[in-house]
């Protein structure tokens, strides 16, 4: 098993990680410090962006709170009841009737009061089973989003296009900007329903469609890449909504581009959308109290669906059956699939380790839907990211505490995994990004690579790998300052392993049998 103690010591403060080359994370204070051979390819890097918080026009108060500014307007009971029914549903109606006890018959107000109390009691009972249901929808998104401190973060969601060099950024002011290095226009997407964006994702095998998870619905934007318009009209967006399915915290396109799944922590069903037809199939499974995070495996065969309680499911997408995976300690916070779809890495809240599950493909039996694909029996721990101390050259001791492993991300060519961990509650302990290298042959291992560090005072909030970076891997990090930077990893070739603990080539040792370096506590997995 790999642990943080094996990592090279972090950079001195003031230094920023620029790129990786020769298995070393190179640092500097500005872009000019890049080594020459790296600068050669740096021309292909997409631009870094900076969104200062002041530049964003934030929303003023929400609509409901503006009520106090107006004079009280007396309406008839009927009008008020109708309005309450429209705004607040049954609970609103009952509250309205109970409150206006002077106008309604006594039995009506008393009975509605009793019903209301009963409803509250039942919902509090339900809420005690699933505490997240008592959160407001903004808090719920903040709790389950893949972004650290979502409610305070300038960049709320980020997505690379799966095939090209363009990406979409969702900002704090509920707008989405699309950057394309090949075009001068940066379209800004705004929609009446586009509020509290929790996730964005581009549709695979398509140039234009972008799915957005919003507070009340899903939006699918169709942004014509050839259009010169900077403000596509809201007519370009499809609105997908289903009663009881909000807020949406996670979305995932199928790699074949045909289906979109969405999840809400309030709804126990995973929605499978046929976007073109705007129809959905709810996949209802009780237990868990909702679905928080979805991740579709790159080969399209499995979907990870985590719930707010200590349980996650892995759906098989052929006949849409699922396996239940109860966790011991906490809920599954994040997960990612290896590019061949055979391995799932996931993290659990409350534990500072990364688990791996291996899925072996059932032999393709013709015709017969294989529901009996033999899954793994238990998850194996592949990395431990618990508290470590490093002695820096200046003699300081940096303590790395990892409260929650926030998100895990696999890069496309399966060469590196980056892990982003931090604790939203602990202010004094900064979040870190640790990068591992992986090797799948002959056994699956995680090997340490280094820490990615930003400007002084900047904490990582969100990260994503570029899906098809030509020169290796490209990790995009959104920082708490509102800056988005890209850290390239230049792998020499995919075949030859270039792993080392301190930059020195370790080839001879790694070519030995795995058992030879078992004492180095690298993770080894038995192939059964």
């Amino acid at each position, binding site marked *: 098993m790999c642990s943080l103690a094996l990592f090279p010591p972090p950079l001195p403060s003031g230094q920023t990680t620029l790129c990786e080359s020769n298995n070393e994370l190179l640092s500097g204070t500005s872009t000019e410090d890049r080594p020459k051979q790296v600068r050669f390819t740096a021309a292909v890097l997409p631009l870094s962006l900076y969104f200062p918080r002041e530049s964003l026009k934030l929303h003023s108060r929400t609509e409901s709170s503006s009520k106090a500014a107006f004079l009280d307007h007396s309406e008839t009971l009927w009008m008020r009841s109708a309005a309450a029914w429209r705004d607040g549903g049954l609970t609103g109606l009952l509250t309205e009737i109970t409150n206006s006890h002077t106008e309604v018959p006594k039995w009506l107000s008393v009975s509605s009061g009793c019903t209301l109390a009963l409803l509250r009691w039942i919902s509090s009972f339900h809420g005690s089973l699933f505490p997240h249901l008592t959160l407001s929808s903004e808090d719920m998104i903040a709790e389950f989003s893949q972004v650290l401190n979502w409610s305070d973060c300038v960049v709320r969601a980020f997505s690379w*296009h799966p*095939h*090209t060099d363009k990406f979409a950024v969702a900002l704090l002011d509920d707008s989405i900007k699309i950057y394309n290095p090949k075009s001068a226009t940066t379209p800004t997407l705004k929609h009446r329903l586009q509020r509290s964006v929790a996730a964005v994702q581009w549709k695979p*095998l*398509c*140039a*234009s469609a972008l799915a957005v998870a919003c507070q009340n619905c899903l939006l699918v934007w169709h942004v014509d*890449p*050839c259009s010169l318009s900077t403000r596509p009209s809201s007519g370009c967006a499809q609105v997908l909504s289903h009663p009881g399915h909000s807020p949406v915290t996670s979305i995932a396109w199928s790699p*074949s*581009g*045909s*289906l979109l799944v969405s999840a809400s922590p309030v709804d126990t069903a995973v929605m*499978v959308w*046929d*976007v*073109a*037809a*705007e*129809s959905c*199939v*709810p*996949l*209802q499974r009780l237990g868990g109290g909702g679905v928080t995070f979805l991740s579709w495996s790159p080969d399209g065969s499995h979907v990870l669906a985590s719930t707010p309680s200590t349980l996650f499911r892995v759906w098989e997408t*052929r*006949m*849409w*059956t699922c396996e239940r995976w109860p966790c011991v300690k906490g809920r599954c916070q994040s997960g990612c699939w290896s590019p061949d779809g055979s391995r799932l890495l996931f993290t659990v809240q409350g534990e500072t380790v990364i688990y791996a599950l291996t899925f072996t493909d059932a032999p*393709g*039996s*013709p*015709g*017969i*839907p294989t529901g009996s694909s033999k899954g793994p029996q238990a998850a194996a721990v592949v990395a431990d990211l618990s508290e470590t101390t490093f002695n820096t050259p200046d003699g300081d001791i940096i303590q790395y505490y990892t409260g929650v492993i926030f998100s895990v991300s696999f890069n496309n060519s399966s060469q590196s995994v980056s892990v982003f961990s931090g604790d939203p509650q602990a202010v004094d302990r900064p979040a870190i990004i640790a990068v591992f290298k992986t090797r799948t042959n002959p056994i699956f291992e995680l090997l340490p690579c280094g820490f990615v560090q930003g400007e002084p005072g900047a904490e990582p909030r969100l990260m994503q790998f570029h899906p098809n970076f030509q020169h290796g891997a490209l990790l995009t990090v959104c920082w708490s300052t509102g800056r988005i930077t890209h850290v390239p990893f230049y792998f020499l070739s995919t075949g030859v392993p270039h792993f080392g603990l301190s930059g020195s080539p370790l080839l001879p040792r790694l070519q030995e049998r795995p058992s030879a370096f078992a004492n180095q506590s690298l993770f080894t997995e038995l192939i059964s």
Partner: protein
Amino acid sequence: MFSTEQSCWFVRKVICWRAAASIAWAVLLLPPITAVFIILSRFSFLHPIHTISECLSLLTSASAIFSFILLCGVILMVGFLNLEYYTVIPTIACSKIALLGQLLHPRQFVSSVVHCIMGIIVAWCCAITIGGRYETLGYPCIQSDGSPQMCLNEYQLILLLAGAFVGFSHSLLGVIHNMNYVSFHTVQQYKYLRFKGSLPLVVKCSAIQALYSIRNYIVVYFFLGYIPRAWICKTLNLHLTSSAHPLDSIAGLLDLSLFYHLWISATFLLFTWYITLLLFRIFVTEVYSFPVQSSFTEDAHQCLPKVLLTDKQPMILKFLALQDLALLSQHSPSRRCEVFSLSQPGGHPHNWNAISGECLSLLADLTQRLVAYHDTVATNGRAKSLSTGSERKTSSETSVTSGTEDLMSPRPTLLMKTPASVFARSIVGGPQSPLTAPFTPDLDSPFASPALRRLTAPVEQCSPWHGTVQSPHIMRRAPKLWSTSTDSQVNGSFPPSPASVPSPKQEASKPSLLAQFLQNRKEQLPEASSQALFADSQAHIWALEGLSYLVQASFSEDHFGVVQTALPSILSCMLVLQEAVDRHFKLPHASSKPVRSTSSIGDSTYKTLRFALRATLKTAIYRITTTFGDHLNAVQMSAEHRKRLQQFLEYKE
């Protein structure tokens, strides 16, 4: 004949068994549904224990068993009607006149009458189970002169008539909402899970629909209720009591308990029927796995390439085969391997040729349909004269078949040529009795939409590769129920155009009035013509998916290079279709989204098929371009197509 025998095997061996299984499940579900109905209809809050014991004793009584047998009979009948009337390609009325024509169709009339009768039977069973004042139609009473006689129990009458009304409105709504249309789901699920998933929707739909029907029924009964009452009294020699006030008054109808019982009975009726329909849909659309190749010659006609190729067959067979193709190309490497394999003596890729050829001809057919439609609309709705029509045909054809000529010229295989042939579901392939074509838009009738017919006409007349072979089939297949005069046919199909004005038939004044009337009512539902154009597009979607996945897989799995030979034609076929679809979506109303109705059991998937097709088409082209990348530059194609393909390679579409 070989093909009729073949369609028989599928209907006989698969469809019938599936229908039987669905009906059996519906019958098995009947006891719990009835039990719930009894409890709901007789429950009283004051005596809950008493109600339950009463219900238990009722469930075991003889009358309950008798009514249960009746209900089983009704379910069997409903299941049979489902089997008889279902279609995988919806009938879309392009104008209100056409819709009226569908509603007045004799076949539809028969169905309405049967539904009415079944409604009465179910309502009678409900009346028996609810008991109390609903139990009998007549009861002994003392007339004012003191003589004992039988009086009419209006409570049972109102319940029975409610059953008839709900049954009738169910069958009418079935036509309007295309309830007999069976759609295929994109998400495959096991039958039980699908049933469980859609059960809440069925409950909701039946309750809401029952509420609306009962509301309408009460209005109708208030105004016209005295007619059936007087008729029943007369026929059965019953009397009306003067003491009880009649129910077709405001005071009589303002009876909450009566309303509740009417509503719960209607809900029960609709729920059992909807469940039967739902089970039928689930069973009949289940994936059927066809073998790609068989080692026994007697099973050869059941293999996927043969099934796809054969002409005369039930549409459901073709759809299931295409669905199976799409799934196998996506999920099953071993079956893909069989598709790419060569025949043992000779080494010809027969499987691949047959499959790809059929898919391409399906797509080319759609392209041609779109081009024809676009040309018709572009000339402001006027049908062109025949000479310009054929000229246009040749020009469009060159663009359609530029790369695919070798594949499609000799084969008269297409069943899905035109909406005319498309819409006729031939459950038994051969000479068709009128009864086997359900709700078919009788293209010969004056009510069929002129737009539709205009569409079909040029294709039938001047298409070179299937004109001679195909049109007799179409002529034969078209139902001859409406024996219309040729006058109205001509007037309907060719709205007055300069070319057809001098024809002698136009001089008669009456047909031209009718023609004008039809012309005025023609484009009332503008979106519908676009829907009708894409009515069978589920097949095209599968063909696109199947082809693109196979091509993608061929990049690594095709050892003999059989796919490479067809790659230029596949690409050009898709690009031409893409162009036609793009042009179609530029038409007014084509890209307007239909209103979603959630409270109807009728499947409205067909309304959005054109959007699904557009998305699938783009994805399919992208799938090929992303897989092959720059290798596509080596593929031979015209400059125009290359330009278009370049757009896809650069992700600019």
